[in-house]
């Protein structure tokens, strides 16, 4: 039996769920030791990023030419970069942007994917055909090349917003397919007929009745989408088409330190290690979620 069956009577995740299904999912999740390590690691990264002002007294952008390219020391745990900016502060504050871009791009992509996928799956017919052809079309565009062109075009104005927008616009297709498939199997269930019989409108059925039952694959996919968006943003930074150099992001920290890699390798190692740690943590969590929520592996 698939995840849909298992969860077909689960209430919305936000409401006061009786321990039952989500509690059982938590029990299964806990069995994955690596996932718990992932939760701890991600928690540490998020805490470090949020508590940046507490953890360091340095500003990520304060230039100090007298102490440029300093080696790690008590004052500067990760040393300083070529302009004498404290690398530890830059990694912490840079994480704010990188995590923000990853999470918001995921939210945007998921919103598009859920709305289009659920409507396509529930309505069927020509709407379904239209949405699925749109998915095929988007997948035909070589994403990285088009992203580079778009970023090159709009670079300058509201760069973070643009980045999130583009990553979201290219990142909804997988979820749309998954949600559609889920709706196709759920729309014939008794609880949907029941809702229709008592006079619930189409929109209410799609988003209030079916959506909570399709949450499991959406959550799993969302975890991987955050990771993908963060990696994409870092790669675009590296190619010089990402966020402008004055914004500290994990990607920008690495590209700016590349020149000094042989003399101050920590400047490249540290931000990359934090990206890897964050993404691995998200992967472990996503993997365990897939198992705990009993989502079929693709």
């Amino acid at each position: 039996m698939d995840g849909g069956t298992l969860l077909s009577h689960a209430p919305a995740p936000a409401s006061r769920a009786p321990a039952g299904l989500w509690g059982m999912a938590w029990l299964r999740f806990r069995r994955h030791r690596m996932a718990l390590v992932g939760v701890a690691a991600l928690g540490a990264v998020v805490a470090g990023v949020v508590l940046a002002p507490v953890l360091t007294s340095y500003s990520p952008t304060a230039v100090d030419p007298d102490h440029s390219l300093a080696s790690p020391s008590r004052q500067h745990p990760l040393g300083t970069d070529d302009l004498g900016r404290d690398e530890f502060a830059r990694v912490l504050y840079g994480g704010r942007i990188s995590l923000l871009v990853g999470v918001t791009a995921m939210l945007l992509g998921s919103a598009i994917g859920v709305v289009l996928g659920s409507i396509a799956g529930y309505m069927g017919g020509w709407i379904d055909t239209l949405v699925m052809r749109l998915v095929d079309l988007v997948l035909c565009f070589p994403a990285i090349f088009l992203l580079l062109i778009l970023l090159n075009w709009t670079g300058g104005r509201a760069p973070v917003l643009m980045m999130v927008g583009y990553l979201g616009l290219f990142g909804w297709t997988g979820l749309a397919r998954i949600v559609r498939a889920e709706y196709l199997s759920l729309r014939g269930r008794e609880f949907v007929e029941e809702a229709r019989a008592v006079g619930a409108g189409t929109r209410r059925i799609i988003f209030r009745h079916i959506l909570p039952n399709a949450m499991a694959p959406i959550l799993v996919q969302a975890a991987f989408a955050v990771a993908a968006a963060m990696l994409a943003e870092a790669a675009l930074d590296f190619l010089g088409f990402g966020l402008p150099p004055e914004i500290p992001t994990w990607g920008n920290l690495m590209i700016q330190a590349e020149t000094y890699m042989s003399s101050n390798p920590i400047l490249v190692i540290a931000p990359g290690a934090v990206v890897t740690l964050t993404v691995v943590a998200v992967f472990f969590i996503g993997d365990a979620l897939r198992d705990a929520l009993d989502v079929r592996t693709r």
Partner: protein
Amino acid sequence: MGAYIARRAIQGGALLVFVSLVSYGIMNLAPGGPLAVYLHNPQVTPDKIELLRHQLGLDQPWYARYLAWLGGLVQGHWGYSYYTGRSVLEMIGERLPATFLLMLSAFVLALSLSFPLGVYAATHKYSWGDNLLSFGSFFAWAMPTFWFGLMLQLTLAVRVPLLPVAGMHEIGVTTLPDLLRHLAMPALVLGLGSIASWSRYLRSSMLDVLGQDYVRTARAKGLPRHRVLNGHVLRNSLIPIVTLMGLDLPALFGGAVITESIFGWPGMGRLFLSALNNRDYPLQMAGLMISAALLIAGNLLADLAYAALDPRIRYT
């Protein structure tokens, strides 16, 4: 089968035209344009800019230019670079072999590493080796590609000078060992994602097949272990992997952009990046079209290989 290929090829062609139309539109609606570099140059008078604009055809509406471009593309004229004035086809012809060599090396490397790893993991399920491999593939997916490349450079070229930091060959040297030494790191960086995903997919696909009745039958009739694995299990496990390989083809091309920038590899990817910086539309379009064509061809190849490997699947 022939009719199926023909239909898919026609669909692919139509998709390419659509992709090119949208991309051309986006590119040409961008403010600035290729002449922006000259606007602040006091040596270039407004008259000259007008003349250039006319010569490059930029005074015509974008859809007229698009049709002219598309007509040329079909006849094998890919236009001239706005920046160097040279034929786009010629410039790409110089760079494409290096990119294809890199892609091929990454592909071969991924193939020769992922198969033994996948088979080992499947036959030693949940052993420490299998666990280590699954841990390793999560890391391979999680590392930013360019960071992995920089770390390789740092360890294998800077700290321990085993391999050259960048480039395709030493100046004046064109021997095969020299080329292979230069290829090693870029090929590994480009192929790492494929190594991880192919070996993981092969593992799970083999585990599925190992549970099948016909495998039990083969074992029961006393076939040696290696014949069961090679003849019965591996062949049937290949089907999903081959699909994955087809889908990875365009990813390798996209990844080449990053890999080439790290290692100063003289390929298409870097040419495309400089075309972006120079607003060199004809060159940008050429790069886009090649990658879109690879994407469509990769999908078609995956479907065809699927049918070739699995007699249960027949396209009509």
